[in-house]
């Protein structure tokens, strides 16, 4: 009785096989950032660049579309350097801020109350599914009442959607 068992075991070893099956998946972000309005600096005084509409500027508007609530936070940073500008030999004092300017759900109106601000960044917990429009203000004050050199100035607003 033992022998057949061994033979059977040998047979099993001889015909044994291994296989691997691949599982593929794709995760699409449930948070989308869209730059709806590009900002424009107005130049009301020689030393000042501002997005304030009363001074000829345009505030940039960023829209966050969140499909799933409570899974993301928005981090928006107003600029603290020019991405391109004429050569500057003095300090630029940066100011700015981020506010919720439009919502698709009235409950999002509380985002500004609960936002966290540090340095030049503002964070919002995106606790409501839907669209939220954020308006960014930026102002660059050059030196101490010093005239900015003529030329083109560009700055960048960074917007991130950070998974929680």
């Amino acid at each position: 009785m033992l022998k057949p068992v061994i033979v059977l075991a040998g047979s099993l070893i001889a015909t044994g096989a291994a296989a691997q099956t691949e599982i593929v998946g794709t995760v699409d972000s449930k948070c989308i950032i869209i730059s709806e309005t590009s900002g424009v600096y107005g130049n009301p005084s020689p030393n000042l660049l501002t997005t304030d509409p009363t001074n000829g500027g345009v505030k940039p508007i960023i829209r966050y579309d969140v499909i799933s609530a409570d899974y993301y936070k928005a981090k928006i940073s107003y600029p603290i350097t020019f991405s391109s500008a004429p050569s500057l030999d003095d300090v630029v004092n940066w100011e700015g801020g981020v506010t919720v300017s439009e919502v698709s759900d009235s409950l999002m109106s509380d985002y500004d109350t609960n936002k966290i601000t540090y340095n030049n960044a503002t964070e919002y917990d995106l606790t409501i599914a839907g669209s939220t429009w954020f308006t960014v203000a930026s102002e660059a004050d050059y030196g101490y009442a010093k005239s900015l050199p003529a030329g083109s100035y560009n700055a960048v607003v960074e917007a991130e959607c950070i998974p929680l």
Partner: protein
Amino acid sequence: MLAYSSSSYSEEVFGSTQNAASPGLTWVMTNILPQFAGLEVNGLVYQYTTVKDPDSDMIVYVQNENAQSDGYIFRNADDWSGLPGNTINKSFALPNTLGEMWGNGSIEIAGEGSVIDPSVIYTYKYDPCFDPQSDPSCPGYEEIVEVPEIPFSDPLEDQLVLDELNRQAKIDQEAEEEDRRRRQKESKIKDALENLLGDGSNPELISADAERMAMALFSINLPVDYYNPLEGGEYVETVILDGGTIQDNKKARRANFAQQVLHQEMVDSQYGSGASAQQEK
């Protein structure tokens, strides 16, 4: 492969309205939606800004009445209670609904606060060939048969008709006058003849034979009473039987019996008992 295109192909037209809330927080949809047959509303986008104390309660309704029944065909509530004011922007993809079902719209506020800068825009679609007769290029279009316009004319004002009527009236009048004269003439002749014949002083007006016949008729004595007795009497038997007695006619009796049987069958057949009655016999 054969490609075919036709100018009669009908395509749906999509569009959007102006801001319905620009005049105020209420609006009349018939002034907002274009008046195309078969137009259907398929979406709505609204935006407004609330001005309020963050601690106060406020609910804003954006709504449209149902034009064909009670209630609303669209109503959405934004609860701003305990929240700071802000600008809200909402869009809705709606099932296609006939534009005529969309009644008057409004933004209604419950609680404390106000709404500024409202904007309500409807999106719609329609088929320009919903009514095939609206455009000759529409499929199903049928050429319109032009009915010539015939000006109405009163026949009683037509001169030819009037002339004919006058002519006919004149003829009728003449015929009537002729008839009246004829009847008048006949009446005169009849009266004259009666007077002539009624007068016994004109014996020469009838012939001698006629006069004799008249005299003979007048001479007959007609009965003056319908109850005059008739002359009666007795008619005696004039036929005499030779031989004494008359034998019965058996043939006639048999024939008479056969007729009786036949008559009885006919009577029984009328009451549905002919067979049984026959069998009994």
